[in-house]
């Protein structure tokens, strides 16, 4: 529980909470990026440099943009506040989340024994990631390739109709 962890955790939680609670959709996305940046910083702190930067690249650079576009596309007034859900649904949602959190926290607090860091500072250097990727994880890589292509085509098919449908 160092200061930096607290700070970053605070940023991540703040961002996430804001993303889920702000009234304006675009603000939510911006808050989400804040949370993602906080998470990425946590990854960096944990020594997973490549993952952290990837997180920024993908979430801030691409997913956020895509989400913003989706908002621009589907809200006739992007700036207007979102209608809140009914009180009952909000209550039940919050309760469920709280319950889940309680269970998780209990599991964590009881289940995880404090553990010292094993050996030297692990550093997932990009080269190691690359080697692992091409040797041990070749199959997942190819599958991800297929998945991405499928996603591209799928999303494209869904979106193409917007362009006029006849293509």
């Amino acid at each position: 529980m160092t200061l930096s962890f607290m700070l970053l955790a605070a940023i991540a939680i703040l961002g996430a909470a804001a993303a889920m609670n702000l009234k304006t959709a675009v603000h939510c996305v911006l808050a989400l990026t804040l949370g993602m940046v906080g998470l990425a910083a946590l990854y960096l702190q944990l020594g997973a440099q490549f993952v952290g930067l990837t997180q920024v690249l993908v979430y801030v650079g691409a997913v956020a943009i895509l989400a913003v576009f989706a908002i621009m596309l589907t809200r006739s007034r992007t700036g207007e506040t979102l209608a809140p859900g009914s009180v009952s649904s909000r209550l039940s949602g919050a309760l469920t989340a709280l319950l889940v959190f309680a269970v998780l926290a209990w599991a964590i607090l009881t289940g995880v024994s404090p553990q010292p860091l094993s050996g030297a500072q692990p550093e997932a250097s990009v080269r190691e990631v690359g080697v692992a990727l091409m040797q041990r994880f070749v199959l997942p890589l190819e599958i991800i390739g297929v998945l991405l292509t499928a996603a591209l085509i799928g999303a494209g098919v869904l979106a193409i109709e917007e362009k006029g449908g006849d293509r």
Partner: protein
Amino acid sequence: MNSLSSYLLLSAVLFSIGLSGALIRRNAILVLIGIELMLNAANLNFIAFWRYGRHPEMLTGVMFVIFSIGVAAAEAAVGLSIIVAVYRHFRTTDLDKINFLKG
């Protein structure tokens, strides 16, 4: 309370926030964002476990997260496309209304 559990707790918090968002928010895009948050909370767990695990040199956690990000991206792309496609049919992204319209 040290390191690993604090990360896990943070992850749990994020997960719950995401979950609550996904349950409470009625705008489909925000629900999707909530789901992304939950995914990321899981990712944080992976990284933390990798970092504090027995074989950090094996990079399993890291690789998992990388693939997870890839999948999340694909999910976001398709998910947002679906939302947009749904919007095309129902003229709304409000899930309650969509439910209602579906009957």
